[in-house]
């Protein structure tokens, strides 16, 4: 059976390979960074199992690993990794043409097929795909198939997969890690009561009898909290418990379905403003080799602001009507 755990092992293997390549080139900081991360990803299941059984030591060691990554990441300068000559790439592009799209499109295509039909594939009475996180398992499988297809189409050596993957990984550098680090911070914030403190602060500041003020506080609170946490999912329960349910639904009679739907997408507007949503706003800066960390946010904040206004108006007009 294919499970998400095997996908994690693949990531760890890739990271370890990148660490070894960097080690051979005496890029010590990069080697250490990817090496530590490989160990954390490979040991993830063990850490969680031990922690669930009240053995804190593996989790504490993982925590030390996270701190080590934080110490290493300022050393992860982009540096110059030799890419293949532009003229050679152009020549290959003219020769291979649309064949190059095939493997690239296999990634979405195989992911899609697994997402749609994975649950029905049975081999020898055993489901081929584990139901938990099946789409992500499908993505991992798609990446392996796409790599094989890419090697076949381009007639590259199999090692090119590792060396070219390493080139992109080092281009990403510490930005590759930021989404994970921020998610971890979200976990810490939740466990230390940051969310409830913010909701209490907001409630201190608004006139609770005024429906418009409550809508505004709820919507802007969702945005503010999403900006801080980088994730509307983390903001939603906090703002709902603090303002949405007690004030808007119980006191002012708002419709819960509309409030829930619009509240969540209002939070998403905040995702467009914040570097904390690193996988959407910071990772592409590294991937596209843009000069400033805020370049993607600068391109999208106006869409976010206009949409925020639309959402707040929709919320005020709709939630008290139905």
């Amino acid at each position, binding site marked *: 059976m294919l499970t998400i755990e095997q996908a994690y092992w693949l990531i760890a293997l890739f990271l370890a390979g990148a660490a070894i390549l960097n080690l051979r080139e005496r890029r010590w900081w990069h080697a250490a960074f990817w090496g530590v991360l490989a160990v954390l*990803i490979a040991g*993830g299941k063990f850490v969680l199992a031990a922690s669930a059984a009240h053995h804190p030591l593996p*989790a504490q060691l993982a925590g030390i690993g996270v701190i080590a990554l934080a110490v290493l990441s300022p050393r992860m300068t982009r540096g110059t990794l030799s890419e293949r000559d532009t003229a050679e790439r152009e020549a290959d592009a003219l020769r291979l043409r649309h064949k190059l799209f095939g493997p690239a499109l296999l990634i979405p295509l195989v992911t899609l097929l697994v997402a749609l039909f994975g649950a029905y594939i049975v081999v020898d009475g055993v489901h081929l795909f584990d139901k938990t996180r099946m789409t992500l398992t499908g993505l991992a499988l798609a990446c392996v198939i796409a790599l094989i297809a890419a090697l076949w189409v381009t007639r590259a050596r199999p090692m090119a997969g590792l060396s070219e993957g390493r080139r992109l990984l080092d281009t990403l550098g510490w930005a590759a890690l*930021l989404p994970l680090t921020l998610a971890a911070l979200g976990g810490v914030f939740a466990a230390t009561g940051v969310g409830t403190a913010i909701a209490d602060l907001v409630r201190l500041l608004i006139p609770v009898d005024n429906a418009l003020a409550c809508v505004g506080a709820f919507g802007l609170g969702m945005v503010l909290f999403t900006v801080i946490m980088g994730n509307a999912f983390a903001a939603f329960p906090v703002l709902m418990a603090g303002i949405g349910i007690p004030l808007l639904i119980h006191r002012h009679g708002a419709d819960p379905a509309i409030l829930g739907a619009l509240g969540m997408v209002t939070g998403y507007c905040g995702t467009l403003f914040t570097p904390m949503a690193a996988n959407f706003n910071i990772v592409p800066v590294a991937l596209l080799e843009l000069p400033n960390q805020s370049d993607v946010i600068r391109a999208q904040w*106006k869409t976010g602001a206009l949409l925020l206004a639309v959402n707040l108006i929709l919320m005020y007009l709709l939630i008290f009507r139905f």
Partner: protein
Amino acid sequence: MTALLHYLPLLGVLVVVAGFALRFNPVPVVVVAGIVSGLAAGKSVGDILALLGTSFVSERALLLYLLTLPAIGVLERAGLREHARNWIASLRSLTFPRLLIAYLGLRQILSMLGLTGVAGQAQTVRPLLAPMAEAAAEKRGAPLSMEERNDVRAFSAATDNVGLFFSEDVFIALGAVLLIQGFYAQHGIELQPLQIALWALPTAIAAFVIHAIRTVLFGRRILHSGMQAAREGQAAD
């Protein structure tokens, strides 16, 4: 005094805001914020380390996108980006706004069907959309300046984000709707997923309209500055 203690963990938020404002490397800033917040909440060092460790590894699915890199890297080595650029350049009628609006619409439809992982910054924007958008923008007859090229790339990334975010709530079996439903159920309010998903539709449409208009305006700006550059080039000859 107890009130003050209640608000003390907010110091962690302050660390994040200050760190980003001062442009420190975000990874250590975030880790320090977690430690500060934990200490302010009165947790022991051992507890904070364990909390940091478990929170980190339990989110490791966020690194799955790294698995796309070897395949994309091999294809880039054989000229994938160059071919994407050449191909779009050969399609006369595919202008910059048309390309990006088509991508936006496609991404929204895929998200509505729950297929959020199908496209993304690593899978589609870097190898395909960004070079295609550059080629489409250069149809104005003048090459892009370095700044314009960066603007076009950033706008491509932004388009992927907008297309992803504001449609996924329309799909009933996906995270957001189930989270909303589950949260209400915990608080004694029973709702059907479809009731929630339906009300996300107006925002999805508004997102498409707003971002499409912005794409047209952005495309026009690039076009005009290109024509100006071409004129100045001719005048210099």
